[in-house]
């Protein structure tokens, strides 16, 4: 009972502190924009910890954050091996192949107005479908190692990147195109000097959407067959033996990776599209 009250009190204290900070004079400083969500996150974790103790929740249902953290440290070599297998080989491999394939097809389709008008609706249609369902089929085709995961990821990231690139290449104003015409510029100068730079914000939008998809594809595909390593494999087998703390450790890794991957693409975007109104 004491733990429950303590958990509630700590969380309430954090919330009260945040009210003071958010309505205080310094609330718009960059430091506060980090401090406030961190306080919220930390107090929420503390409440989780204390309530699990207080309500006597069994670890097979929900482990405590400290147990998860302990697992994270003690199983680091295993987690690193899983990370290499799933993220570096499966997700990144597929992301790169799918990205280049989509970019190539977009450039080709872009040469014809007719094709563009066909590719755009079909591509955005495909992007909304449950493509991850091909995972069992691909595992059968390409074997259970990382190649099949990369193949699933390739197909999943292909359509969002394709659609965004094609849409971006069309996103120039009449005036910009007329300017190129007054210079007598042909297809290639127009592509490299006008349309590709103008398309960059769109392309990065597609690349950002694709980061999360890549991780989902790589992990889910491992549920249908994998060597004895990988995040999806670890999650499903640890469940079998009710080692929930290890499952949560993998979830933490997946969440961190997802945010970092997205953050990395965002940083590159900021460097390359610093001129776009949304970045200024």
């Amino acid at each position, binding site marked *: 009972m004491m733990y429950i009250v303590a958990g509630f009190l700590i969380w309430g204290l954090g919330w009260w502190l945040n009210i003071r900070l958010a309505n205080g004079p310094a609330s718009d400083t960059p430091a506060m924009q980090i401090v406030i969500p961190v306080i919220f996150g930390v107090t929420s974790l503390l409440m989780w910890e204390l309530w699990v103790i207080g309500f006597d929740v069994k670890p097979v249902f929900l482990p405590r954050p400290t147990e998860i953290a302990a697992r994270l440290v003690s199983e680091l070599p295993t987690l690193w091996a899983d990370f290499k297998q799933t993220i570096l080989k499966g997700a990144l491999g597929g992301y790169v192949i799918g990205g280049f394939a989509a970019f190539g097809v977009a450039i080709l389709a872009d040469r014809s107005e007719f094709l563009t008008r066909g590719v755009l609706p079909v591509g955005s249609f495909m992007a909304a479908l449950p493509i991850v369902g091909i995972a069992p089929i691909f595992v059968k085709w390409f074997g259970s190692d990382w190649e099949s995961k990369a193949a699933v990821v390739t197909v999943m990231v292909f359509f969002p990147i394709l659609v965004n690139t094609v849409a971006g290449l069309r996103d120039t104003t009449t005036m910009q195109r*007329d300017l190129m015409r007054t*210079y*007598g510029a042909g297809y290639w100068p127009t592509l490299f000097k006008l349309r590709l730079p103008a398309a960059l914000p769109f392309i990065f939008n597609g690349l950002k959407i694709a980061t999360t998809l890549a991780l989902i594809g790589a992990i889910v595909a491992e549920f249908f067959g994998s060597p004895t390593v990988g995040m999806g494999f670890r999650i499903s087998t640890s469940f079998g033996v009710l080692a929930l703390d290890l499952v949560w450790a993998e979830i933490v890794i997946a969440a961190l990776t997802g945010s970092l991957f997205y953050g990395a693409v965002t940083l590159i975007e900021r460097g390359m599209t610093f001129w776009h*109104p949304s970045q200024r």
Partner: protein
Amino acid sequence: MSLENTPVITARNLDLTFETNDGPIHALKDVSLDIGKGDFVSFIGPSGCGKTTFLRCIAGLETPTAGEITVNGMTPDEARRARAYGYVFQAAGLYPWRTIGGNIRLPLEIMGYSKADQNERVNRVLDLVDLGGFDRKFPWQLSGGMQQRASIARALAFDADILLMDEPFGALDEIVRDHLNEQLLQLWARTEKTIGFVTHSIPEAVYLSTKIVVMSPRPGRISDVIDSPLPRERPLDIRDSPEFIEIAHRVRDGLRAGHIDD
């Protein structure tokens, strides 16, 4: 009042009809005009009178449905490939991902000038429009008037002898516009280019031009051509002189005449 009277641009009986969803639009009807070398020609008229369309025809951005137009004795398309034009649009239209210097370098890159030549030209035209030292800034870091000056510099960077300007100062406030008008005249005096200038401001047209072409809409056609008696050297206060006011009157009458048959 042009220095020499060899026409560089000749239009004979131009006709242009756009097919739209609401039926055909007669944008130009029977337009004939000679523009001499070194002329500063303004096109003025209400919207829909075809002044922009005519400028685009000269630049080869539109193809007339009938009639004949030559630029330096060539078709507009050939003249475009021979880099005869610098075109300045209503908005500066600078590429936001390039610096001011990079924007001015854009046509030079496309036309294959050497690196050294590019740098030399960028610096020269930046000085010409009073933007020396701004080549590393990005367009959005400059005011609207400065951006428009940069876009004029971009049009001057390669040796086009014809400068076509489509309401280049239309979006700017009057004080900036006066200043740029003055600078444009100085630039014209220094470079001896032939300038085609679309505007809907009567004072601007009269102040700048050696020849004022008054146009009227539906169908777009020329209703009056006025050769300005003003000297080439024009301080801003020339706008209070009786000659100036008299030409302005004539332009206004021409515009009004075009409206009567609505």
